[in-house]
C-alpha cells in the first residue's frame, strides 16, 4: 500500500499496513512516536552525496499529524548542498541521554522521507513560527536571509525500543 503513495521509496522493513498501529491508544505506536518527537528537541539529519552518507545535528519541529517536520540550516553548509542535490534523507530522533544506564529503555525513531527547500511564502512562515515556538533562540537565525528552511515529508517511521524491537508506522495512508 505504501508503494502506491511513494512508488520509489525502498522498503527497509517488513511492510505493515499504513496506519495499522493502534493510533488511538495512549500507549500506541503513534502516541509513542509523537511523544518522542515532542519531547526531544534535536535530531540527527542523514543526507548523502556521491555515495557518501553525512550526518548533522539539527533542531527540529514536527507537525501535529506527524506527516512532516522542519529544520533550518545556513546555506553555506555541506548539508545544505547535499540537500539541494538529493532530497532522500533520514532523520533520527532518540532519547539516549535519558537512559544512559539502561539501553533497553532507549527509544529511537528513524524517519525517512523527502526534504524540500521552503521558498518564501505562507508555508515557510508557518514552519518558521513552529521552529521559533519550539526553539526561541533560533529567532534571529531563522530570520536571516542566508538561513534555509527545509520541510521533510515523512514517508515512514521506524520506531525502536527494548534494544532491538522495531515497529514501522506510516503517517499518511488510508488508515490515517
Amino acid at each position, binding site marked *: 500500500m505504501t508503494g502506491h503513495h511513494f512508488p520509489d521509496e525502498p522498503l527497509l522493513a517488513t511492510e505493515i499496513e499504513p496506519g495499522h498501529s493502534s493510533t488511538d491508544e495512549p500507549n500506541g505506536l503513534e502516541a509513542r512516536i509523537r511523544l518522542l518527537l515532542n519531547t526531544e528537541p534535536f535530531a540527527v539529519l542523514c543526507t548523502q*552525496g*556521491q*555515495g*557518501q552518507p*553525512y550526518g548533522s545535528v539539527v533542531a527540529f519541529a514536527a507537525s501535529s499529524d506527524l506527516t512532516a517536520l522542519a529544520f533550518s540550516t*545556513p*546555506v*553555506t*553548509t*555541506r548539508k545544505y*548542498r547535499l540537500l539541494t542535490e538529493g532530497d532522500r534523507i533520514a532523520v533520527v530522533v532518540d532519547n539516549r541521554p535519558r537512559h544512559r544506564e539502561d539501553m533497553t529503555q532507549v527509544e529511537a525513531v528513524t524517519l525517512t522521507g523527502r526534504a524540500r527547500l521552503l521558498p518564501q511564502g505562507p508555508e515557510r512562515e508557518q514552519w518558521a513560527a513552529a521552529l521559533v515556538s519550539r*526553539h*526561541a*533562540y533560533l*529567532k534571529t*537565525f531563522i*530570520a*536571516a*536571509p*542566508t*538561513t534555509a528552511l527545509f520541510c521533510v515529508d515523512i514517508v515512514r517511521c521506524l520506531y525502536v525500543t527494548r534494544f532491538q524491537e522495531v515497529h514501522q508506522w506510516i503517517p499518511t495512508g488510508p488508515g490515517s
Partner: protein
Amino acid sequence: MDTDRSWIVTLADADAVDPAFIGNKAANLARLIQAGHHVPDGFCLTTAAYQRFIREQGLGPIIQMELRRKPLATMRWEELWDVALRIRSAFLSAEIDDDLSHAIEVAAGKFPGARSWVVRSSAPGEDSSLRSFAGLHESIVGVCGLEEIRDAVRKVWASLWSDAALLYGQESPLDPLQSAMAVVIQERVEATPSGVAFARDPRDQRSSYAIVEAVPGYCSDLVDGVVDPDRWLIHRESGAIAQWKPGKRGQAEETAPLLSEQALHALQKSLTSIESLFGWAPDIEWTGCANELTILQARPITSGKTDPADPRAWYLSLKLGPNVLRRLATLVTETRIPQLQADGERLMDEVLESLDDQELADTIETRSSILNHWKKIYRDEFIPFADGVRHLGRYYNDTVRPDDPYEFVGLLKGQPMLASQRNHKLRSLADWVKTHPEVETALKRYLAERSADFDWTQAYQSIAQLSAGAEFVEQFKALLAKDMDIVFGEERLGDHPERVLRTLLQLGQPVSRDVGNDYPVQGYTGSVAELEKRLFDAAGSEKLQEAREILHIGRLSWKLRDDDNLLVARLESQLLRALRLGAQRLMASGRLSEKVGERVREKVTSRVVDALRDPNAPCSDWPIEETSEERPPLQSRESARQLIGQPAAPGVASGPVCRVRNALDLGRFRQGSVLVCDAIQPMMTHIVPLATAIIERRGGMLIHGAIIARELRIPCVNGIDRAVEVLSDDEWVTVDGYLGIVTLGHADFDLETGSN
C-alpha cells in the same frame, strides 16, 4: 512556590526571608528596618518572579544562546556590551504576564501615598561582603505609575546580564537557567540634603576616619556626578570632624557647610550602628538629616584599590552619565580636537633638515612629549567620550523599542569624518585617473616595473610630461602630504607612494561580490531623517530636547572616535619623521647600521636623542627586532572549517583571504579579497572599498570596521578569535554577515568518497 505570595515580599516582612530569594540588598534593608532605622517603605519582587518571567517568555534559551555561542572569555568588552544590549532588548520586548503584573499592582497599591518610586536590583550575592565591586546591575530612580514600574522591573531584571556583570562573570559565567534577580521597589523619599557615607575611607581599609558627602537635593544627583558635594572626614572613635571640603556648586566653593555638626553626628552614629548590626563597615546612601535621617541603602564598602593589571575596572569607569558626557563633549570638540589638529599641522610645517644635531634631538624630545601628552588625553578623555554612542544606543532602544537593537546605528551614517574625507579624495582621484587612460597606463606600467630602487621622483617627472599628468602628480602629492601623513603599523603611509597608488588604481574598478546580491537587506532600512523622526516622535515633546542632545552627543562621539585616531597617528608620523632624519644622519656618519637605521621606531626615541647629543653614545644595541609572523602550532590533522563571530554587517560573499597586519600588507591588498585583520583602524579604511568581505578579530557592532562595512554594504563578521592567525593568505572563505559565520574552503566541498 510560584504564586503571588512567593513573588512579593514587603520589606517590613522580609527579614525572615532567605536572601537567596530576595537578594542581599532587600535583605540588608529588611534588617535595617528591624533594627529601627528609617528606611523608605516598599516591597521586593523575589527571584521567583524573575524566574517566572524568564520561563513564561522563553528567555532562558535566548540568554543561553547569547552567552554560549562563543566562549565568553574570548570576548572583548565591546562584544559583551553587544551581548548585554541584545539580551536587554529581548527583555524589553517581552511582556510581564497578567498574573505577575496584577501582583505588582496590588503590592504597589498598598502604598497609596507613593508618588514616585525607586526600582533597585537586588541580586543574590550583590551587596555582600564577598563582592569586591558594586554597580554591576541597574537601579532606576523616579519611576511613576504602574507601567513605568513594569518597564523599570524589566530593565533591572535584564541588568543581571549587564555588560559589567558579564565582564566580571567571564571566568565563571552564571547559569542562564538557574540565575535570578530580585528587585526592590521603594517609595522615593524626597528629602534634602542627601548623600553617601562610608564608615571607613574606602581607599584605606585601616583608616580611622569615616567619610560623609552631602548635596542639596537628591542622592542620585551626587551619585551621577551632577552636583559637587560637601565632604567631611570624621574620626571614627571620637566623632570629631577632622576636615570639611566645601563643594563647588556655583561659580565658587560654598562658604557654609551643608550639614550641621548635629546632623553629622547623627550620620556617624548610624554608620556605627549599621556596622555593628552587619559586622562590616558600610557604605550607605541617605537622605534627610538629624532626626529625619532615612537610609536608602547599605552595602559593604568595596575596596577602593583595583588591580592596575585588571582592565575591567577601567572599562567600568567608561560608563558615563549624561552630565559627564555633556562636559566631555564640550571639552573634546571645542578644545581638545582643535588643539590636537593644530599641534599636528604645526609639526607638519616645521622644517627639520636645517636643524643641527642638538636641535634635532631637542625637537625629537619635544615631539615625543607632545605625542605622549595626547596619548594620555586619548585614554583619559577620548576613549571615555566614545560612550556617547553607547549612550545613544541605550536611549534609542529604551525610547523607540525597535525590533532591531542596532537600528540606532543608522543615525550615525554620513558623519563628516576625516577618514571619510580622505577616502573620498582618493576615490575622486581614482575616478579622475579612469578618465585619463594615458596617465592610467603609465601608472600601471610604473607599478609593474617597480623594483626596490625605483625612484619616485623620476616617475613623477615623467608622468608630469603626459597630457594632464602634471595635474595628477600635484593632486597625488598633496594627498600623500596631507592625508597620508599618518602612521600605520609603525610606518608612515606617505613614505610609500607605490602602495597608495596600487590601492588608487584598483578603486576605480567595481567590486563584484559573487554571492549575496540576491539577499535582501534586513532590519529597518529607513533614511537618517526617518530614523531621527522615529526617535523624536517616540520621545515626545516633553523629552524632545533631551533626545536631540543625546543624538548630538552620540554623533560627536562617533565622529570623534574616528578623527582622534587619525590625528594622533599624524603626531606619530611627525615624531617618526624626526626620528628617521636623526637615523639618516647617524647612518651617514657610519655610527648606525643601515639595518637598524631603516627600522627606527618610536620605542627607540631616547636612543636616537642620546646618539644625536653624544657622539660617543652607542648605537649598536638598539632593541629593534624583526617582526615575526606569529602562527600557532598547527596540528597536522586539525583544521578549522567554520568559525563563529558576530554578524557585524549583512550580506554574504566569498573570496581569497588577504591579511592586513602592517603598512606593507595595505599595499598588497587586492580588489576582491576578503580583508582579514585584527581591527580596522581609521588609518586603513581607504582599502576597505576594495574588499569583497571583512573578517576582524576585534568584535562589536559599534567598532569602526562594523560601521564602515555597513555603510559600504560589505558583508562583515567580527569577533573571530585569532582571525589573523587562524586564516592564511589566499585561503578561500565565505563570509556570512547575516549569521556571523566564516566558512573555510570552497563552497563545493569535497566529500569523502573513499579515495583516502
